[in-house]
């Protein structure tokens, strides 16, 4: 209503944001606050999300594409309630491969936001959104090799699990100690290791199991929907 109603302002901001993000990242380390690292990274995360959203807002997206993304988001939100398996990453990756990086980013980021409704919104939410969103985005860039080689898919699934965990650990450490403390970070990674491993394995299993049937389903839908 008031924040970004102005079309020109929105456009301007869209162009300025990449610069702003760089600026914040650099300034973060030299600002005179005690815990500038946390502030800088939070602002960076939020700005990157804003950047993406403004880009998405400007584009025209057909109703069928919108519904597909909403459906995938809802499916992965429900998936997050399945104990242990949590197919959010896998569904995000599959969406990205078949429908493109933007759809993947949205699916990942929005699933994080919506499921945090139940699990609790907090300063971690922007990081989660960004982490899952980027997993989708990158999968979108790598769509061709991921579609062709199962080994690539396996590697990406495992890497996504580890990466997600590592990004969230960065945040945990930042939040606690304000700056980046390598020994704390190492400890956080080690304690999260069993969870990370399980997560990566379930990602891979899920991707392997679902890549083909899911691909067939989505390709049929793409044909029917004419997306």
């Amino acid at each position: 209503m008031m924040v970004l109603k102005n079309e020109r302002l929105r456009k301007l901001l869209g162009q300025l944001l990449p610069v702003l993000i760089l600026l914040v990242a650099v300034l973060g380390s030299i600002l005179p606050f005690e815990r500038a690292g946390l502030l800088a990274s939070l602002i960076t995360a939020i700005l990157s999300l804003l950047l993406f959203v403004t880009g998405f807002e400007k584009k025209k997206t057909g109703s069928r594409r919108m519904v597909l993304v909403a459906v995938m988001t809802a499916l992965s939100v429900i998936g997050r309630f399945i104990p242990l398996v949590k197919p959010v990453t896998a569904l995000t990756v599959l969406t990205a491969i078949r429908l493109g990086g933007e759809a993947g980013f949205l699916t990942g980021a929005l699933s994080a936001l919506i499921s945090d409704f139940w699990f609790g919104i907090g300063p971690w939410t922007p990081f989660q959104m960004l982490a899952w969103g980027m997993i989708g985005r990158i999968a979108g860039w790598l769509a061709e090799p991921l579609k062709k080689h199962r080994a690539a898919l396996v590697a990406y699934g495992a890497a996504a699990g580890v990466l997600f965990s590592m990004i969230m650990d960065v945040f945990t450490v930042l939040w606690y100690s304000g700056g980046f403390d390598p020994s704390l970070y190492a400890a956080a990674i080690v304690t999260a290791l069993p969870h990370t491993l399980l997560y990566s394995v379930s990602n891979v299993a899920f991707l392997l199991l679902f890549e083909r049937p899911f691909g067939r389903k989505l390709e049929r839908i793409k044909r029917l929907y004419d997306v």
Partner: protein
Amino acid sequence: MRAFSDCHPAAVAVCLLCAALPPMVSMNPVLLLTALTGGLLLLLVRRGATGAFLLSSAGLFLLLAMINPIFSHKGETVLLVINDRPITAEAILYGFAASASVLSALFLFRSFTQIMTSDRLLCLTGMLSPKTALLLSSALRFVPLFSAQAGRVRAARRGMGLARPDSPAARFRENTAVLSTMVTWSLENGIVTADSMAARGYGVGKRTQAGLFRFRRADGAVILLSLLLTLPTLVGMMSGQLAYSYYPALSGIPLSLPAAAAYLSFGLLSLMPAALELRGIVKWNFLQSRI
């Protein structure tokens, strides 16, 4: 004026974010204690915390405080030595400060999550991007629909004469089959949703975003006040007037004039949500007693 949780979502968001930010960024004990108190008060006034939650937060508070002295051995006052590593009083105190920083945010965001119903979140998102808000809204529509359907699929499969899965492998297979059915079902039926969107003019032009919430003068006042009250703290932090160091020895609590102004304004800011909320409740009770 209405209770805090009845304010426009933007006012709620700005106020809570302003209150949550300084304790995350600064380790000044006065700010931390104030934020912790404010967050806790808001939770209590709104009855947003169960006994179990408070108890587990107390546990978390102690646990988090213990982490720092394990990893950080800076500080002058050595209390004891374990494995050739000194455990210092400063590190323990820093641990408590970090713990307070984490918990104050936890408290505030718990209230934030409780106040921000989906309608409010959509209103906020809609201010940034109506399209994303629409996406969120339909995803929120699908979540309960799909989980109900997943239950129906499970029941249908068992009604067909398939046994209830008894081993983990069977359960995994069953879950996969259910998910596969769900994916087909939701994607195929999604065409109807898309058609329904198109039929009602989605994509003919620029969308607006309707909401249940009107932006009133009082909401503007809350936002303005929140921003104004953050200013002294921000200035204090930037100029180093509020700086407080734990290592090598605890520095004295800064008590300059700007620091005092920051304490006062941040105290008001932290108490504002709880006070407004309480005011709403009291006023309601008062009005009711007069009827």
